[in-house]
């Protein structure tokens, strides 16, 4: 079956756009081909620095001829309707069939040549391509991500002729900008295209480029006994910057290794797109880097490694400047600066935020076994580094730099609990409210690196004991940042981390900045998930609703909100937490409906909710669990049906009127189960509560087998309904079983 090959060859496409471009090309081509009535065996797209490629295998030469029956007006319809239908179908009245009073026509359509479909398809793709940003060039009107230079369009080995805004289709493409022959060349089909490109030093497939980079980068490191520091994001990016990626190991002045390793790595990554290198012998960064060049240089890369090394030195000198300057400045000055930095127009300055977080950290510290004074102090210092030069340069280092500076400055801490400084608003500062609104930074240097750098402070008196915990809290209070980030467990850190996130959540909910759909500009979902994970991992019994209520008071209510709206936002925030918890539990494999069943109890102790859900999941996986659930549903159905007839009798079961042994047995079991469940739930022994419920299974089953609820004797019927109501109530202490599927 014939093959279609399309290449859109342009000037350099931004690396960050290539992945999406390949997917968009795939989607648009599939849609257009399908709309033309074509089928195919396989459709693949590729994106690289200078080209987007589409190859479709197994297309027919043409779509088949078709006959289609079309329904027309009723035979009784006015004449105009029939005339319209005849015009539309191009038929005469004699050619129509009358079936049950309705006109039907058979319309034949001729198949379309695939080569006739291709030009329009490519034209529509090019003109409608969803680039995040596109441009015009020269005197033309066409838009593409960068100037479009060539179009390859081959079907079944032959060029499909057309042009788009003066760019003609052909079978010609180009190889590597520097290493190729420098001459455009013709290709026959996809296999030939791919092979010729490789001869011309172009790896078409991004996966091949990534593999080549990884293998070669690891190899150049291994030659010197070093290890590449993996970075998937960086790998993706550099694979989009080179058609013939060639990793080269460069040297860096070892003197820079006294900078924090995070700083070195970010300088390398953000500014230069280099990989960092580890030296296993010293268990830290090596004075090296890996640059992924686009050429195999004729001197083996010596000149270009040297050039890159000089550029890196200049970058690291800048970083060292910030590092040195920051340590001359210190926390007091930074805290004062925060008074001049707006966090959010409606939520005050960063200094206001620091005050709120400090107060909240103090309140929740006892729940975590942390000292309230210490927690307040750590919270007060945690945001100071936002005003430092280094974080101004590398926002990703927020917290991390604060941790280093806290350790390094030995005694930077204003030990009194009072507010640091006063006035000084309007200070010019490069700081933006990165804090919490910034993108996630999951690519941290591992703990070994951090320890290594922390052990080489320039001042001789590193903090000990309490101070060290304080520095850890400053460093780690943004955690956990993403679903894969670790969750802090040090009490002081947890107190500050919780206060930080809760302040964000309460604040933005108060000013009605809630996430909608895919939009979550202040990363509130991440903050809520962070709170949940912190609480669960630390078994912290924080009542979310009461914290929200208390903390709301820390915000000036100057925007005319009534207490009513405050209550409203409290409920909304709780629902928001519930949603996040559901997502978390679902990601962990728990059933959505179980989460709902537990949430329906109205508990807002997240730790308890999770324990209940877990116990419930285990129980329902047993035979007793499924059968009891079935019994519950049956009881509920009966009760619901009876409720429609009139009020259901409630109250004590009249033991004297229990006539059948099955109902007597159930009554006894329910009595016992109620007490057992109550005791177990009070002790938060949810497995025990489930066991108590399991004891109900047999009596409930027997009851439904042997007892007719709707007895002719009204007292018996009332009694049995009361009994079923009790079963439902007892089970309802554990979860709302009515919300469970099955």
């Amino acid at each position, binding site marked *: 079956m014939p093959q279609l090959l399309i290449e859109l060859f342009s*000037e*350099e496409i*931004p*690396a*960050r756009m290539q992945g999406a471009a390949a997917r968009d090309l795939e989607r648009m081509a599939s849609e257009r081909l399908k709309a033309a009535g074509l089928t195919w065996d396989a459709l693949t797209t590729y994106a690289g620095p200078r080209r987007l490629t589409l190859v479709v295998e197994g297309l027919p030469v043409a779509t088949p001829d078709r006959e289609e029956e079309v329904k027309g007006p009723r035979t009784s319809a006015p004449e105009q309707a029939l005339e319209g239908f005849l015009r539309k179908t191009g038929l005469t009245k004699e050619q129509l069939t009358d079936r049950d009073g309705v006109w039907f026509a058979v319309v034949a359509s001729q198949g379309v040549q695939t080569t006739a479909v291709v030009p329009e398809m490519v034209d529509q793709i090019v003109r409608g391509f969803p680039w995040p*940003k*596109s*441009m*015009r*060039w*020269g*005197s033309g009107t066409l838009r593409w*991500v*960068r*100037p479009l*230079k060539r179009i390859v369009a081959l079907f079944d080995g032959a060029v499909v002729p057309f042009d788009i805004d003066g760019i003609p289709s052909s079978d010609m493409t180009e190889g590597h*900008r*520097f*290493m190729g022959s420098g001459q455009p060349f013709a290709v026959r089909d996809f296999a030939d295209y791919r092979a010729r490109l490789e001869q011309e030093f172009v790896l078409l497939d991004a996966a091949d480029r990534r593999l080549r980079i990884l293998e070669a980068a690891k190899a150049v490191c291994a030659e010197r006994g070093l290890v590449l520091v993996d970075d998937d994001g960086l790998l993706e990016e550099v694979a989009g*910057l*080179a058609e013939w990626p060639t990793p080269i190991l460069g040297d860096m002045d070892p003197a820079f290794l006294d900078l924090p390793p995070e700083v070195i790595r970010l300088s390398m990554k953000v500014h*230069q797109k*280099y990989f960092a290198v580890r030296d296993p012998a010293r268990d830290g960064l090596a004075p090296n880097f890996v*640059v992924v*060049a*686009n*050429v195999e*240089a*004729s*001197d083996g890369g010596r*000149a*270009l490694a*040297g*050039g*890159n090394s*000089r*550029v*890196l*030195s*200049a970058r690291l000198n800048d970083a060292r400047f910030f590092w040195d300057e920051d340590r001359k400045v210190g926390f007091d000055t930074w805290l004062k600066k925060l008074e*001049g930095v707006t966090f959010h127009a409606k939520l005050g300055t960063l200094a206001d935020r620091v005050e709120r977080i400090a107060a909240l950290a103090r309140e929740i510290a006892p729940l975590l076994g942390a000292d309230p004074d210490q927690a307040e102090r750590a919270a007060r210092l945690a945001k100071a580094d936002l005003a430092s030069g280094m974080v101004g340069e590398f926002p990703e280092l927020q917290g991390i730099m604060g941790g280093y500076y806290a350790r390094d400055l030995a005694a930077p801490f204003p030990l009194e609990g009072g507010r640091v400084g006063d006035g000084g608003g*309007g*200070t*010019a*500062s490069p700081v933006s409210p990165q804090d919490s609104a910034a993108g996630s930074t999951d690519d941290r240097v591992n703990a070994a690196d951090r320890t290594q750098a922390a052990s080489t402070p320039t001042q001789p008196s590193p903090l000990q004991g309490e101070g060290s915990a304080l520095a850890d809290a400053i460093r780690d209070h943004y955690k956990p940042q993403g679903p894969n980030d670790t969750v802090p467990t040090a009490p002081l850190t947890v107190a500050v981390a919780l206060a930080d996130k809760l302040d964000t959540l309460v604040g933005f909910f108060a000013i009605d900045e809630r996430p909608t759909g895919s939009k979550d500009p202040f990363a509130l979902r991440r903050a809520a998930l962070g709170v949940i994970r912190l609480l669960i991992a630390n078994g912290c019994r924080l009542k979310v609703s009461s914290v929200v209520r208390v903390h709301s008071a820390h915000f000036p209510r100057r925007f005319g909100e009534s207490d009513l709206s405050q209550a409203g936002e409290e409920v909304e925030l709780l629902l928001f937490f519930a949603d996040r918890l559901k997502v978390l539990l679902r990601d962990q494999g728990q059933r959505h409906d179980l989460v709902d069943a537990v949430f329906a109890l109205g508990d807002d102790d997240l730790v308890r909710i999770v324990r209940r859900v877990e116990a419930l999941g285990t129980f329902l996986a047993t035979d007793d669990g499924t059968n009891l659930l079935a019994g519950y549903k049956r009881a509920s159905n009966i009760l619901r049906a009876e409720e429609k007839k009139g009020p259901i009798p409630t109250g004590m079961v009249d033991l004297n009127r229990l006539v059948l042994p099955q109902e007597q047995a159930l009554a006894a079991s329910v009595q016992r189960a109620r007490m057992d469940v109550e005791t177990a739930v009070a002790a938060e022994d949810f497995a025990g509560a489930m066991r108590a419920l399991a004891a109900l299974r047999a009596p409930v089953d027997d009851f439904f087998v042997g007892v007719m609820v709707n007895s002719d004797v009204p007292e018996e019927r009332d009694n049995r309904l009361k009994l079923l109501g009790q079963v439902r109530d007892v089970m309802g202490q554990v979860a709302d079983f009515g919300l469970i599927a099955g």
Partner: protein
Amino acid sequence: MAEPSEPLAFQDLILTLQKYWGERGCAILQPYDVEVGAGTLHPATVLRALGPRPWKAAYVQPSRRPGDGRYGENPNRLQHYYQFQVILKPNPDDLQELYLGSLKAIGIDPKLHDIRFVEDDWENPTVGAWGLGWEVWCDGMEVTQFTYFQGVGGIEVDVVSGELTYGLERLAMYVQGVDNVYDLKFTRDGTTYGEVFLENERQQSQANFHGYDVEGLKRRFEDMEAESTRLLAMTGPQGQQLVLPAYDQVLKASHLFNLMDARGAIAVAERQSYIGRIRDLCKACAVAYVEQEREALLPSPRGGRAGDGVEAH
């Protein structure tokens, strides 16, 4: 191809680029005689990019960034430095190849060095200009800004210009393998960049950060602002608005703003308002310029199309 045995001196780098682009049809202009923060602000780029008329020019432009002064003590930062600016309107199809040819001309062999086009969308909010393109990296160092102009003065361009901005000091440091800008060979026989400019950096830095009279700067800013508006309201012998002199005043106001900023005299709250004032002046000039170009009231440098629009007017 091997690298030339002796790398180009700073002035030879400039001469080589001028020769290269001159041979490719560019008018080689001399620097504009008003202080600017970047070569783009030269009217030969920012104004000529507007309207439909073709244009090719190249020039060195001294650029002043008062806040970047470091008293001559930082090896990479200067408050006065040179940019080499090329503008080709409309951009030729082979602009990238032409550019790479210029790198070869100054001794950078792309088979030995790693030349990369890395996404960088350019924007200058004070003149309301934007474009798409790249920063060009040579062995990890940004040596050129490569931009396809999409809009200027808040107006979408009629014809796209290709703009190249070479950072001459960086490029020279790279070519000569020098780590400190003041060690650059300015001439082949050994005059250094430091001999030419070090004292200037020291004195100008002092003046930028501590010398200028803030009140005076502020007054002059307001004078220039008023002057620009006044001139733009006047008409010349052919009935045209006085765009070019009005634009000169915008450049002067812009430089005065930069000086005030370096003196630390611009409060955070004022900053946006100052930038907005400059942008408004600039936009007024751009709008007037486009109108003139479209009406072709200005005599064309080639004398060709002057009459085209007159009938329509």
